[in-house]
């Protein structure tokens, strides 16, 4: 493509230069009158593009297309469901109880069939280093192949404008060695572990007796809300609020105290609590590993 661009540019620049450098009139610089000029337009304007475009078409839209198309049903070894929300990614592993958010773990060198849907508006799932993007359209699940050749972290971001916090709807895809992936998935499928310290126990009490529980799920407790992300293993994630903050105690507390300041317009309201309650809540959530 770049070569084609360079050649096209070169030809035009040359023609313009020849036009500028010459003084005699009604003849082409290398001879020929009106008929030859029309021939030049026909040749460069019709014949050349037809050849170039036909080549590009066959190459890109017949051959390369196959490598990025949705994977055929039996060619993949596992499936992941991703549900877009304003403004986070819900990630489910069919056949297990594992649910997480804004973080997708996949085994390396494994063909994964990712099925994308949405809970509200149109989002677009995009991890530039792994594949093209697919739109998450209401009532129209789309599939895409996810396959990482090397272990590592790959950043992804929503690509379809989805409202106020479209800019902060990112995610990490972690490609791990298969054994490590299996261990992680087994952990994710378990219910939340019980709080270990008195402060964390107080935090759980705060969580369950406030509006938090009506929006979030923590498996193994009474919190079964479906609006916000599943928090069962929040402590294992690397970031908060879809990559806005790093996940640590201080950031958790900052987020809990005023989510609208950190990510204006997001769906989580500020819940007024005492300082001690905020600290307890952060301690509890951090311990959900």
């Amino acid at each position, binding site marked *: *493509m770049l070569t*084609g*661009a360079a050649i*096209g*540019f070169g030809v*035009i620049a040359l*023609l*313009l230069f*020849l*036009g*500028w450098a*010459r*003084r005699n*009139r*009604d*003849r*082409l*610089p290398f001879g020929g009158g*009106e008929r030859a*000029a*029309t021939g030049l*337009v026909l040749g*460069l*304007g*019709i014949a050349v*593009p037809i050849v170039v*475009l036909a080549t590009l*078409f066959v*190459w*890109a*839209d017949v051959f390369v*297309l196959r490598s*990025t*198309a949705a994977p055929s049903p039996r060619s993949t070894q596992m499936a992941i469901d991703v549900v877009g929300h304003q403004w986070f990614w819900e990630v489910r592993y069919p056949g297990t109880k594992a649910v997480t958010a804004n973080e997708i773990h996949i085994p390396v060198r494994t063909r994964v069939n990712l099925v994308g849907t949405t809970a*509200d*508006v*149109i989002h*677009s799932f*995009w991890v*530039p280093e792994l594949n*093209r*993007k*697919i*739109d998450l*359209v*209401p*009532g*129209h699940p*789309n599939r895409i192949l996810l396959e990482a050749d090397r272990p590592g972290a790959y950043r992804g*971001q929503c*690509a*379809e*404008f989805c*409202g106020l*916090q*479209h*800019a902060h709807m990112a995610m990490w895809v972690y490609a791990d060695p298969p054994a490590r992936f299996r261990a992680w998935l087994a952990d994710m499928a378990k219910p939340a572990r019980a709080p270990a310290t008195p402060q964390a126990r107080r935090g759980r009490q705060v969580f369950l007796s406030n509006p938090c529980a009506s929006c979030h799920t923590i498996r193994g407790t009474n919190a079964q809300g479906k609006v916000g992300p599943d928090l069962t293993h929040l402590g294992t994630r690397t970031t908060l609020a879809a*990559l806005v903050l790093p996940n640590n105690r201080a950031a958790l507390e900052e987020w809990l105290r005023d989510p609208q300041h950190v990510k*204006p*317009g997001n769906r989580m309201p500020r819940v007024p609590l005492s300082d001690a309650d905020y600290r307890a809540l952060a301690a509890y959530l951090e311990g959900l590993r």
Partner: protein
Amino acid sequence: MAIEVLGPRARERVGRLDRIWEERPGLIGWLTTVDHKRIGILYFFTTLAFFAAGGVEALLMRTQLASANAHVLGPSRYDQVMTMHGVTMIFLFVIPMTIGAFGNYLVPLMLGSRDMAFPRLNALSYWLFLGSGCLIYTGLFLNMGPDAGWFDYVPLALKRFDPGLNIDFYALGLIFNGISSIAAATNFIVTIFKLRAPGMSLNRMPLFVFAMLAVSLSLVFALPTLTIDCVFLELQRRLGFHFFDVGHGGSALLWQHLFWFFGHPEVYIIVLPAFGIATSIIPTFAKHRMVAFPLVALAELLVAFIGFGVWAHHMFTTGLPTVTLVFFAAASMMVVIPSTIQIYAWTVTVMMGRPEFKAPLLFIGGFIAFFVIGGLSGIMFAAIPFDQATTDTYFVVAHFHFIIFGAAVFPILGGMYYWFPKVTGRLYHELVAKLSFWLTFAGTALTFFPMHIVGLLGMPRRVYTYQGGLGWGAYNLSETIGAFVLTAGLLLIFGNLLWSRFRGPYAGPDPFFGGTLEWTTTSPPPHYNFAVIPRVTSPYPNWDRADRDEDARRLESGELVLEEGHETPASTVRDGYLDEVLEMPSESWWPITLGLLVTVLFVMLLLGHFVVAGIFGALAVLALGGWHAQEPAEA
């Protein structure tokens, strides 16, 4: 032809024409005018105001994005500004500037006609355009501006996710704006087919007019789908219909299909007039008629036609079947061919002639460079896998700004310089004009080129901010600097034109030795455009000296002067034989009255006062009755 050399009888005829065609002086004259030139000037200044607003919006966005995590605009404000930038530049600047201002002013002049086919409808188009623009901007000033992006995808634009009036300003504003554009397009089609000077068969019609014809036909077929889409949206938002609800058998993709069925032809609607301007400027400054003239005319029409078959390439990631993708990719590639024909026709014409690189031709050179870059990145989107990787990123933003700013606005700027002497009677300052070109050129490249790179690095479009540490910062900063350089270039252009309007030397009727008919009359042209309807025997009639001498003789003898009334000749559609003489309407209060009534009607619809809206609808029908009671008598 200069007044001084006229004989006494010719001078008497010109005096009679002056009296017949004169309009009321002062403000009332402007409010009631039906003169296509005055309407063109009204369009020009109005669209320029919207251009300024859209430009300020762009600068606000670029300032916000100059660095990571900036706080110039919050997300809500940013989304409004971003949406309004798109809506403004497309619906309130480029289209009304090219069709309303350039088209209105120039088409009748190039055709050798005395006005548009429907002068009062023309005035109505303007007043409706003004009303719709003000309506849409009221939303922004009330902090309720449209905020779902210029293509306004559902479900984001539905009441559930956007409960305010924001989207209603968008939908009603565009329905309203569409009426104006459809009226204008119809007017152009009739004018172009019927009001050409006798002798101007279709193959002698200027290429600019071919471009305007292609644009008008596109508008007439494309705009109704946008209007329908917006009507569906309003019905769903206001009255609970379910066009876009999956749960009730609707489809979110229905909006996208209808929108892009309009939206892609729209791209050619934006860029075709620019092609037309290029094909006017190049022959003048290359001093050579366009090479492959019929091929270029055909290519202009073909671009508009193929443009209707490519809309789904905006939807390559929505999960359409592969067969559909491949079909639309092939169609998208086909549209390249008429464009390459034109590019080579322009460059070969320059090569054949003796080009004189004055400012207008420089702008066309810039246009060709940007159009080639934008066109090449456009071809890339016809490679489906590439499209699926780069769509909705800054790579797309880069691509369409090279097309819309580089390829559509550059010829507009060049055209402003080119026809400035015709409209004002004075010459612009050449050296400052050249400087302003280089400044705008550098600014445009600096603003939009890095967007390709940052898009390939993974920056999605329409984000109000981005995080640091991703390697996007330096590119974004250079884009912001470029935007301010570009602004300086634009200010220099308008400063030059403003200064020259009052201080520039007198230009005379034909300072550049242009080939088309607008250069045969005085600068600025009189209300009736031509004292005698010019004789046309070639596509470049102003280069036919014998025909112009014949005009002078005919003015003396009174042939085709039409000095008995408010008249212009009509000719046959294909061959341009004199058909009949039309009696044209004079100045009128009805267009502005009707425009005002329809504006109130839309405001009432917006506020949900449907009964009051109905009353104003009825008043508008009554006004139409009054309008028709004043038809000019048949000649």
